[in-house]
């Protein structure tokens, strides 16, 4: 479903070049729950960003369902992200002026789903992530774990083919982090979306069905469980 071939990416930092990815190739099957792990600077976030069409590669190719996504134009990439991808960020990145319900519905609003349907679907997914009764709270009135649940709900409400999560547990305590991972695993099984994590949290690695270890921009190991 996702095919990454010989992906290379170099950043310029001041006078020096940083090779973030040095010819990474891998395939990810539909419905996988895969963790891309590695220390800081190993290239895991870069790989996630490239799969998520929010960054450009120097060379190589990414095809998703047979389409080469790196060659899409800016607006086509935006439409692709909107229709096929869900994102969960380390620091939740919710819109502070919107309630939990409106934050979730925002994804659907972007897709042109009418307001009433968007709210119904959002309410259903908030129930699923255990936030019933908190739908009218703004992010500032929610705990970190609750905010991350809203972020997951926002990503999953549109039934994306792929959900990309960058360090989703990094700002959470271990207990809440575990709850979030269990929630994501459940959603993965229920919605059949492909979950791809970038993490250096051992707990996330333990939860993953497949663990890809990156080091200095190269795949060091690829283990299926």
């Amino acid at each position, binding site marked *: 479903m996702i095919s990454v071939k010989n992906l290379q990416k170099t950043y310029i930092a001041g006078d020096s070049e940083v090779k973030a990815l040095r010819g990474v190739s891998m395939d990810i099957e539909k419905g996988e729950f895969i963790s891309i792990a590695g220390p800081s600077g190993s290239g895991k*976030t870069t790989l996630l960003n490239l799969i998520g069409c929010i960054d450009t590669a120097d060379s190589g190719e990414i095809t998703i369902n047979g389409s080469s996504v790196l060659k899409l134009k*800016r607006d086509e990439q935006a439409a692709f992200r*909107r229709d096929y991808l869900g*994102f969960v960020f380390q620091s939740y990145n919710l*819109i502070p002026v919107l309630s939990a319900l409106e934050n979730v519905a925002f994804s659907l609003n972007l897709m042109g789903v009418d307001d009433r349907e968007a709210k119904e679907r959002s309410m259903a997914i908030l129930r699923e992530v255990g936030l019933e009764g908190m739908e009218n709270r703004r992010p500032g009135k929610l705990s970190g774990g609750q905010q991350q649940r809203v972020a997951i709900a926002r990503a999953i409400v549109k039934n994306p083919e792929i959900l990309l999560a960058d360090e989703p547990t990094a700002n959470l305590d271990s207990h809440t982090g575990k709850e979030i991972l269990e929630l994501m695993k459940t959603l993965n099984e229920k919605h059949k979306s492909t979950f791809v994590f970038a993490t250096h949290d051992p707990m996330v690695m333990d939860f993953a069905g497949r663990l890809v270890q990156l080091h200095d921009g190269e795949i060091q190991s690829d283990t299926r469980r």
Partner: protein
Amino acid sequence: MNYLPKMAFKNLARYKKRTMITAGAIAYGLMMFILMQSLLTGINKESETNLRLYETATGRIMAPGYWEDRETFPLKKSFNPEVLTPVLKNSHAGYSPRISFGGDLIFYKDPFPEDGSIPGRFTAIDPQRDSQVFKLKDSLVDGNWLVDGEPGILLGSWLAEDIGAEIGSTVLVETQTRDGYAQVFDLEIVGILNCPNPEITRSGMFLPLSVADEYLEMNGNVTEMNINFGSGKSAESAFATLVPELEKIGLEAVDWHILGADFFAISQAKGAGTGMIIFLILIIAGVGISNTMLMAVYERVRELGMMRALGMRNRQIRALFLWESAGIGVLGGLYGVGLGALVTWPLVKWGIDYSFLLRDSSFGYRLQGQMYGVWDFPSMIAAFAMGVGMAVLVAAFSTHRILRLDIPASLRFQ
């Protein structure tokens, strides 16, 4: 797309303080704009009216070459007003002849406080016909109006005060006849004029036409025939229709725009100067808005990065900020117009007394005493549109800068 205005409104409410400060900066600029426009328009309108009613009328008919040489008061370039009768009799215009001549007003101690003389321009008017064209008679504040054939003089009140003139006192006029011979004659001060047009109050000296005709040996000739068709474009058009007829009898017509060219030039220059001040005020307001808008946009770089990652297009983000800035612009515009109306109201109702400024120096405007503002509704609408436009423009610039960042950089932005 309905969620965009809703979100924009929520953002405005979320940053209440900043919204109010930005709208306040816009409002201040617009308030000053409205105030200055009101004053400027009021001064110009009043000045134009006073220019027309006391100096120029709709226009003036003169002998060829008189207007070009007017500074030397060329009495030889005069004409017999009777030649105009066929042209004017069916024109429905008010008309009144005058003789303008230069000379010295001489006065002696007792009854005057001291001896002295003042060079100036004397205007001989037809006491009966003058009111058909000018409002001079309404400005008489002391004494009597001129009587045909009687050697009297009317003085502007500031001039009278300056020389210590009183009704009944006698002055001498030293001048030259039409043929260039020296002439001196006595005139009794019969009245004092205090006119809305400061040129008259400051230096006006008026005597009967028949008296001037005799002393200047004009033989019935006059230097000008003033024509009154009223005001407005139709009056100007009516005056213009006289031109071909006048050319046939060898006279020329000069309309009030040329007669009052000094005022119009000053008005235009002052308008440009005021425009510059208004422009600077708006620039200052624009910098204030730009600063707060940039802050607003930079504070939300990560939020925008997330929105773009979720699939929001750049044009949708631009639209979001345009809604927000338009909201601020509308708020600032309404405040500005409201405040502008509030500060303009006392100006329209009571005006400002600035006669102390005009007494000794002329600013070119034909108005004295109270300076009134006017309700300038087109300026208010323009101010409102400017407020919205300025906010939208600044926001568009700020958003453009943010959208140049790529999404990962936006998400990392601190």
